[in-house]
């Protein structure tokens, strides 16, 4: 325990900068996954066949082991950050697309029928009715993607990208347990903190009319 405290007090600068790299990798990837995944999730609601194809594709991506994913991407984008971000992005897509798709699809048909009967176009229905009602489900997908992303990002060190994984793998290699543990704990704390902040964001974005049930 004391060895651990000693390590943290001596190397807090390193832990912090590794955390910074970690956040950069995970957030860039999830941010891109949101930008791409949410519109796809919204769009595929109009076509069931397309939805099946996209969902199956995303499912397959998810089954690739993370280490293999990093390796597979090397011929495409080489190593380091580009590779790491692309891999994390691909992992983030499934939960985001899936939750956006189901969130929209699960809106009570009575509500969409009323919206249509009142004279909303399908776009108006999407952004005035379906999307606001699906926010909790979409945000759940974003939270899953983020937490997964922070977890998987620890492996990115193996392809030369930084992040808290560096501390963990160096710690293992050098039998420096305080170093390894501080890397692991920092990654866990980062995941919890991010999830909490996203939870607050979700609460802010969701109408009181659907939370106070």
């Amino acid at each position: 325990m004391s060895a651990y405290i000693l390590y943290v007090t001596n190397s807090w600068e390193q832990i912090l900068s590794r955390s910074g790299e970690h956040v950069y990798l995970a957030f860039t990837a999830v941010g891109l996954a949101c930008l791409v995944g949410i519109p796809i999730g919204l769009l595929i609601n109009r076509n069931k066949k397309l939805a099946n194809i996209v969902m199956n594709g995303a499912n397959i991506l998810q089954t690739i082991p993370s280490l293999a994913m990093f390796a597979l991407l090397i011929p495409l984008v080489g190593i380091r950050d580009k590779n790491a971000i692309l891999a994390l992005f691909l992992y983030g897509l499934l939960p985001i697309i899936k939750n956006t798709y189901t969130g929209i699809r699960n809106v009570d048909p009575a509500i969409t029928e009323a919206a249509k009967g009142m004279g909303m176009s399908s776009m108006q229905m999407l952004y005035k009715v379906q999307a606001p009602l699906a926010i909790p489900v979409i945000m759940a997908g974003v939270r899953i993607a983020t937490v997964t992303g922070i977890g998987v990002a620890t492996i990115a060190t193996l392809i030369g990208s930084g992040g808290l994984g560096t501390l963990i793998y160096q710690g293992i290699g050098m039998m420096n347990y305080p170093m390894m543990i501080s890397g692991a704990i920092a990654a866990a704390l980062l995941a919890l903190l991010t999830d909490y902040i996203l939870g607050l964001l979700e609460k802010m974005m969701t109408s009181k009319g659907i939370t106070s049930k």
Partner: protein
Amino acid sequence: MIQLIDVYKTFNGNDMVVEDLSLEIEEGELVVLVGESGCGKTTTMKMINRLEEVSSGTIMINGKDIKESDPIKLRRNIGYVIQQVGLFPHLTVGQNIGVVPRLTKNDPAKIAKRTIELLEMTGLKHEDYLNRYPNELSGGQQQRIGVARALANNPDVVLMDEPFSALDPITRCQLQDELLNLQEELHKTFVFVTHDVDEAIKIGDRIAVMQDGRIMQYNTPENILKNPANQFIENFVGQDRLWKTPNMLRAKDIMDKNYENMKDIKITDIVIVQPDTSLHEVLQLREKHELQIIPVVEEGVTVGIITESSILSLMAEIIPGNEGLKCPHTYCT
């Protein structure tokens, strides 16, 4: 005025849902489409705001073929109320009412004023309800908001698809009464779909009884009850129905038309009634003046006689037997 002319509707080209249907609904009229589930009544209604397209035939509103209107614009000018209400749960009561006026880009100040006006009309205080969310309201209150929302853009036509069916009987009765008051006040054209014959008789100016995608009879409630067009209608409305709605019985229904010495009765100096005098009034006159015989006179000519036996024979005809008493619907008059 809404005209449906030779309308047919099939799904997938084989199942005939609506067949050879023609219907004319006058302006300011409340017409009820009634029938068992699957008879095509809801489909017929949905073709009016193009939620369903006709397979063949024409539907015209105020002389204009609805096929020529943009369906979205068309719907914004037709109120729409459904059974499950379909209020938007993420919007407040006030925002829900203002949805259509906002779609048509009305002046926000006007929308706010109109929202308060409509809320008051439904009997809900705007200070208490404007900023509440639908899930804080009872079923009856939600449907009141549903009706207010449908009226927000001041449409000429309002379509209602079993709007009160999910409510408890007492609330349903109140909302029916409120709808009748509303119609009297606003003179909108209502097309109302229900499977409940009692409801149809209570609120309809005219009723279209449907079976297997066709209209079996289209007439006033009174005429349907008294002269059902066929056995199906008679069974559907129930033979005891007149007994439940005695206010529809008139002198001409009670009188004995073949009274022997009818022509000898002098109609001066005695109490007489018109053919359209209500049963209630006839009975009161009879009681008040202790009359044995009341002549029914139309334009100076005696057309029938009301006697004790003619009243009794009417009762024999309309008092329900055991089968008529199985499901009492006597929550409201």
